[in-house]
């Protein structure tokens, strides 16, 4: 096949087909449209204001690495006036997180951004390695998801930041919409498509997803072409089977119709929950003060189970105790 010219500049050789628009683009036009779209998302939704201190939830994976790179670039290019930080959670997973944290440390040096690492060990007294020893491999993702969400907030408080950005991309959001439908989790279904969640007085920091409309393929290709240093190994404990099925289903849909991902996000955004549907009210955890929809927050319930040697506490899926910021928060 003869090389295809770029559909924007008509000059350079096209290197990829964008799933979102089916345009054939050369490297530099792809960089330009990708970066500009993220900038427009940030502007349109008013994610930042000048002077904000912003922590990038950094796992060393492709999404957060590209996010750190692009946000630093846009902050300089468009003079957002942000102070950027890298914030990483060390779950204590030998052979996985220790290696990915090395990547984050290299990113810290490559992008000259300050890095804060906060560990499950220091926050909860448990590493994921020990949790898995205690609870087995079936439900450990629940612990990890719940603990990570809170850990990022605690880390943000320590850094004194106003805002956490995560690398969740369009595929992640669409997948979460599907999962919340499959689990009948109406409250999360409503929240999960929001690009930004408000902070509150109880210690949850404002969060946003600047890549909400960026396809995973674009992020991977961006990282590949730019030769960004990222870590791409599956978590050794990860068989989060349910999410895996949702992801595989979504990828099948995308293969037959690339717009499926944005369509699902759009469907999620357009859902209106009837006013008479009873929603959980968000209060404060009696023990630690974190946001909770019950007397105790999910992390405290899980932790109590671990410490009392009853690790099933809090994960025997009763409808009133839905088991998972594991669902609302795929790790960034």
């Amino acid at each position, binding site marked *: *096949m003869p*090389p*295809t010219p770029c559909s924007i500049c008509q000059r350079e*050789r*096209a*290197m*990829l*087909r964008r799933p979102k628009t089916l345009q*054939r683009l050369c490297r530099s036009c792809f960089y330009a449209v990708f970066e500009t779209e993220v900038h427009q998302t940030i502007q349109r939704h008013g994610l930042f204001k000048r002077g904000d201190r912003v922590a990038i939830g950094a*796992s*060393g*994976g*492709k*999404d*957060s690495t590209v996010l750190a790179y692009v946000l630093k670039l846009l902050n300089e290019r468009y003079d957002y006036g942000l102070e950027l930080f890298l914030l990483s959670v060390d779950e204590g997973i030998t052979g996985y997180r220790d290696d990915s944290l090395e990547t984050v440390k290299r990113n810290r040096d490559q992008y000259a951004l300050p890095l804060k690492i906060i560990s499950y060990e220091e926050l909860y007294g448990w590493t994921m390695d020990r949790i898995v020893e205690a609870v087995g491999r079936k439900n450990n993702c629940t612990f990890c998801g719940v603990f990570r969400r809170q850990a990022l907030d605690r880390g943000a408080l320590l850094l004194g930041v106003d805002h956490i950005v995560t*690398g969740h991309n369009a*595929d992640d959001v669409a997948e979460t919409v599907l999962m919340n439908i499959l689990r009948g989790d109406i409250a999360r279904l409503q929240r999960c498509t929001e690009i930004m969640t408000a902070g509150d007085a109880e210690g949850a920091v404002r969060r946003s997803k600047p890549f909400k409309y960026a396809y*995973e*393929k674009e992020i*991977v*290709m961006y990282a*590949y*072409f730019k030769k960004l240093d990222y870590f*791409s*190994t*599956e*978590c050794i404990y*990860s068989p989060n089977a349910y999410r895996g099925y949702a*992801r*595989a289903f979504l*990828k*099948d849909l*995308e*293969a037959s119709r690339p717009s499926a991902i944005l369509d699902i996000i759009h469907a999620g955004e357009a859902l209106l929950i009837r006013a008479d549907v009873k929603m959980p009210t968000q209060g404060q955890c009696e023990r630690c003060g974190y946001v909770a929809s019950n007397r105790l927050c999910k992390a405290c319930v899980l932790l109590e189970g671990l410490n009392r040697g009853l690790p099933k506490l809090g994960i025997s899926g009763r409808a009133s105790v839905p088991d998972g910021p594991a669902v609302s928060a*795929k*790790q*960034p």
Partner: protein
Amino acid sequence: MELLFDQQHTVKVQLPAKEGNFSIRELLPWIRDKLLRERPELFMQGDTVRPGVLVLINDVDWELEGELEYQIAEGDRITFISTLHGG
């Protein structure tokens, strides 16, 4: 991906001699049978790559190169990138 290929990042291969060129369609099952060390279902689905695996031919998205029908030439570099893992 490295996991599936015995931790190897780059593999140089000599395809068996035959009349005419190899297409990607023929290459995939050859890789699966000869090079893959574990879990072939994470690499292929039906006669193509599993959705979520990106394929590049000399750094160009295979969607621009005819996908399965692309005729492999001497010295081509075929890259597989899995997107199916968390952060």
